[in-house]
């Protein structure tokens, strides 16, 4: 077989495979949009669920998910960025660094249900937070930590060393260099990582299962020690164990559509921010 022919065959094959991935994605999206769009309305987004969750809206679940995302980021962002700064800017010794990186990857590989159990054992029981926003946020924060660390580290690595040298050459301390030069330059990429991890966190069910999520709670929380409803768990409930699964099916699709929209909006925002802020550095 001649080279050009085999080249053509393989390229066609690769193209088909890539196309298939796109088709799969659009089928899922299309299916959910087709089934979910019917129930989406202003009321659906702003009303409490009623009639055993077969009618009404999903307002408390939307609010709950937003609160949990915010809470998890308040924890994961500073801790993750600090850890990445330490690993990339301070630790020189290679074995120590490699060990920490390995541990970060391992943390990323822990199944989310294990995070849920750990969160329940530590935050809910040991620290007596009970099923609460704070316990759920911290558990989700732990889950997001490896993503934040990894993306921040990548962002810091991309900062050209000549900037650090210029700053140090002017008599700046390492801390001043990080604060005034390295972090501002890496910022667009760090924010991108943050938003991507928001997308990840907002869709997780297992970590909130035993730590915060309420089966049915048609009111908003008053403090961080209250429980909340959350979109992914709500979806799970009305799809599998609601009062009337067939009747609440449209609401399940609507919930799925809202959830997937939040994730998509996060991802689109991430790339917009990266482009806009990235240009400023040029």
């Amino acid at each position, binding site marked *: 077989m001649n080279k050009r022919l085999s080249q053509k065959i393989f390229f066609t094959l690769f193209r088909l495979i890539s196309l298939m991935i796109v088709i799969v994605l659009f089928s899922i999206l299309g299916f959910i949009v087709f089934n979910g769009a019917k129930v989406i309305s202003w009321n659906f987004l702003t009303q409490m669920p009623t009639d055993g969750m077969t009618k009404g809206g999903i307002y408390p679940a939307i609010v709950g998910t937003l609160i949990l995302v915010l809470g998890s980021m308040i924890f994961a962002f500073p801790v993750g960025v600090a850890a990445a700064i330490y690993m990339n800017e301070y630790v020189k010794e290679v074995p120590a660094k490699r060990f920490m990186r390995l541990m970060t990857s391992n943390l990323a590989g822990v199944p989310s249900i294990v995070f849920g159990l750990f969160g329940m054992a530590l935050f809910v029981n040991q620290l007596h937070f009970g099923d609460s926003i704070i316990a759920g946020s911290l558990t989700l924060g732990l889950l997001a930590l490896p993503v934040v660390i990894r993306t921040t580290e990548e962002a810091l690595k991309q900062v050209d060393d000549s900037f650090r*040298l*210029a700053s140090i050459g*002017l008599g700046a301390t390492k801390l001043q260099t990080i604060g005034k030069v390295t972090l501002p330059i890496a910022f667009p990429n760090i924010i991108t990582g943050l938003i991507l991890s928001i997308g990840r966190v907002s869709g997780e069910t297992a970590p909130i299962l035993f730590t915060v999520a309420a089966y049915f709670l048609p009111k908003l929380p008053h403090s961080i020690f209250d429980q909340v409803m959350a979109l992914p768990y709500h979806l799970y409930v009305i799809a599998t164990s609601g009062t009337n699964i067939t009747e609440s099916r449209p609401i399940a699709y609507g919930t799925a559509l809202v959830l997937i929209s939040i994730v998509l909006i996060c991802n689109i925002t991430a790339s917009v921010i990266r482009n806009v802020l990235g240009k400023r550095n040029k």
Partner: protein
Amino acid sequence: MTPKIETKNLQLYYGAHHALKGIDFSANANTVTALIGPSGCGKSTFLRCFNRMNDLIDGCEVEGQILIDGMNINDKYLNVDELRKKVGMVFQKPNPFPKSIFENVAYGLRINGINDKKTLEEKVEKALRQAALWEEVKDNLKKSAMSISGGQQQRLCIARALAVEPSLVLMDEPTSALDPISTSKVEELIYQLKEKYTILIVTHNMQQAARVSDRTAFFYIGEMIEYNDTTEIFTNPKIERTQNYITGRFG
């Protein structure tokens, strides 16, 4: 007269590699000294001894004395950040920060705790004038430093180094990434700067060394082979290896 800078039996090791072998060197204030030699001869390493930038390299050991104004700076108790404020450095590739032109020059002042607007404006203007860049950028100080030409960027980096008022300025092949016109502007600038500063410049360009420097040191495999007035080095080198290098027979 005490020399502005001096090294006595300076030895430098990168791990097992003996990179500088017993360098005895001195230069007077308000002079330009060119450091020449083939790649890997140790001239940039030598340059970086004067602001202790070699400290940043793992496994780098420096022995011997390095004196600035008679004070030994090769001392582990020395405050290195303070030293680097007094010794400015200009790098091979222009490396302005992705900030405005003004903020680039003000950077060194700000990290020294100067935040008064008026003082900053005065010092930034002064530094930009010294770097012969003021007239070109005075109406665009808020513009990003990344938007000006490479030659202007390098003069901006010189201004940034001068703003903190160092007395010694180290230049590591400052024109190697520049076009000929920008190069001649920077060379002219170096010549003017020696009125106020002592300058050490590493260069691969023989003509440049001959044009800008008062004294020239030739390095070869970690040793300083010959050190003399620039005119002597280029017209009447005492050592054959120097002559071979200058005339381009090796290098």
